[in-house]
């Protein structure tokens, strides 16, 4: 007797998909038999555009690589260019960069709360967390001039110094957020519905996790302790005191616990930075930006974003235009080969839930 399967296109227009991508499923009843991802709806050909702009102009276009969290691409590019040139960043610049990166991590985790619980049917948390995320975006607007796209981190430091009274505002916002996080956790982690839906769902095999290219919170949710901030520290991370969140379990529940742990570590890191901020220069100024050349060579700069390792490979041939810039986002390995493997055997109602927990974000796959 032949089995018949139904084909379902979880297409680009769908309220449950994280972004503009398509997953083509073959179902036997309610269970998924085969899954296939299709990306390419957001391709803008960044790498071709950067070859036509000089080094200073590329810094304005880079933040659009990753839409929910635009600061790690700028930081990774700056690290790669500084490696090629051998340029040193002053101490105050390093601390300000770390401050911006940690604030970006906090606001991405708050958006994750909304997505993960919204796909389980709990809509109140989305209203609370996205509403409170606006306070962090207000801090960004005062510091850099824009809510979403900042263009603040340059090779050699940061663009401008912090204004008067900024440190008190940051500390007040962190106090407020810490109280609110306890209320979120009561709604999400003490909730029997969320626990039943999250435990045992979306299993990754921990022996094969590194081979399949898993990075970030999914890797730490499998019990493997890797984090770029601890392994190859950059900026001011080697002078701050924090811990990695590592939990066993390999499922959606353990990944959620990793993020719950890390958002509190980020808040404590922001407080330490404000405490220890040194005085001095904030930018090691580059010469004439229109005629700035970088010595020939290739370098790979990597940064830990909220979803995993974000890397930039920069190749230069000594002229004022970059030769080749190739970016790698954490969702590159998660959304194409890993998702097709994790979804086999899962329920069709859990597809959106699993995608939110892996952190599949299409703009960084096809750039």
């Amino acid at each position: 007797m032949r089995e018949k399967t139904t084909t379902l296109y979880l297409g680009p227009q769908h309220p449950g998909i994280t972004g503009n991508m398509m997953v083509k499923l073959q179902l036997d009843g309610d269970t998924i038999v085969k899954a296939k991802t299709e990306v390419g709806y957001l391709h803008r050909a960044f790498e071709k555009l950067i070859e036509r702009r000089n080094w200073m102009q590329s810094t304005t276009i880079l933040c659009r690589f990753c839409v929910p969290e635009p600061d790690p691409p700028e930081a990774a590019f700056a690290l790669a260019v500084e490696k090629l040139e051998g340029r040193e960043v002053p101490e105050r610049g390093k601390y300000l960069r770390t401050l911006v990166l940690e604030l970006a991590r906090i606001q991405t985790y708050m958006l994750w709360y909304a997505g993960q619980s919204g796909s389980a049917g709990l809509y109140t948390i989305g209203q609370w967390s996205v509403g409170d995320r606006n306070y962090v975006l207000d801090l960004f607007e005062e510091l850099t001039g824009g809510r979403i796209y900042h263009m603040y981190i340059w090779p050699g430091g940061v663009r401008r110094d912090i204004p008067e009274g900024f440190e008190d505002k940051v500390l007040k916002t962190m106090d407020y957020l810490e109280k609110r996080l306890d209320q979120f956790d009561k709604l999400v982690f003490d909730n029997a519905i969320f626990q039943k839906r999250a435990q045992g769902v979306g299993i990754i095999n921990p022996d094969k996790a590194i081979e399949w290219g898993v990075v970030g919170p999914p890797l730490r949710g499998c019990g493997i302790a890797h984090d770029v901030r601890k392994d190859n520290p950059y900026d001011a991370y080697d002078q701050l005191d924090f811990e990695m969140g590592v939990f066993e379990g390999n499922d959606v529940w353990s990944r959620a616990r990793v993020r719950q742990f890390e958002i509190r570590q980020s808040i404590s890191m922001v407080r330490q930075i404000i405490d220890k901020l040194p005085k001095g220069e904030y930018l090691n100024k580059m010469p004439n930006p229109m005629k700035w050349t970088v010595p020939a060579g290739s370098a790979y700069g990597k940064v830990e974003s909220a979803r995993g390792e974000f890397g930039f490979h920069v190749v230069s041939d000594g002229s004022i235009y970059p030769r080749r810039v190739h970016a790698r986002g954490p969702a590159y390995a998660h959304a194409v080969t890993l998702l097709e493997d994790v979804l086999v055997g899962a329920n069709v109602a859990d597809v959106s839930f699993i995608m939110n927990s892996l952190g599949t974000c299409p703009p960084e796959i096809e750039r």
Partner: protein
Amino acid sequence: MDNAQIKEEKLMITLQSAFPDAEVAFMRKDEVSLTIDKEKVASVLLKAKNQLGYNYLSHLTCVDWMEQNEFELIYIIWSPTDKISLYVRTRIDREHPEMENTDMIWRQLNTYQREIREMFGVEFPGFVGDKDFILEDWEEMPPMRRDFDTLTYVDDTYFEREGREDARDVREAITKKSGEEIPDFAKKYSRQ
């Protein structure tokens, strides 16, 4: 500081003795590079993964050196114990580019190879992957090659919004309005 280079030197000695015809070089702190012919790349990757502990693949990229008529492929792998990144480089011919398929070593290389095949036209015979990854119904040459001119393609295919009828050069308009000269610091920054 010589002390800091000890683990890189150890790695370089191991690699040079295992592959005598490779060029092993120290790039900077925590980074070592190895340049080798394209037939031996798979054995380098297997040895590094199984015996030396480099089991984490960071990246695979392709660079177009049109003047020298070659493509360059760079694999970057990382070791969790030594925390060193190893860059494995190789050059292939530009007219008929072909490279060995390595996605049985790391599964995620399948995605990288699909993209390089679509964007540069490099063939990896023997691997299974759909032809269309990012572009759809693309009939021109592979777009990331340096001889593909994106500006002429845009002028032919898409409609552009015309500028204003009274579009004038900004610097000349300001000097005429205020009666001043263009200052010296602005003259230095040419448009070219």
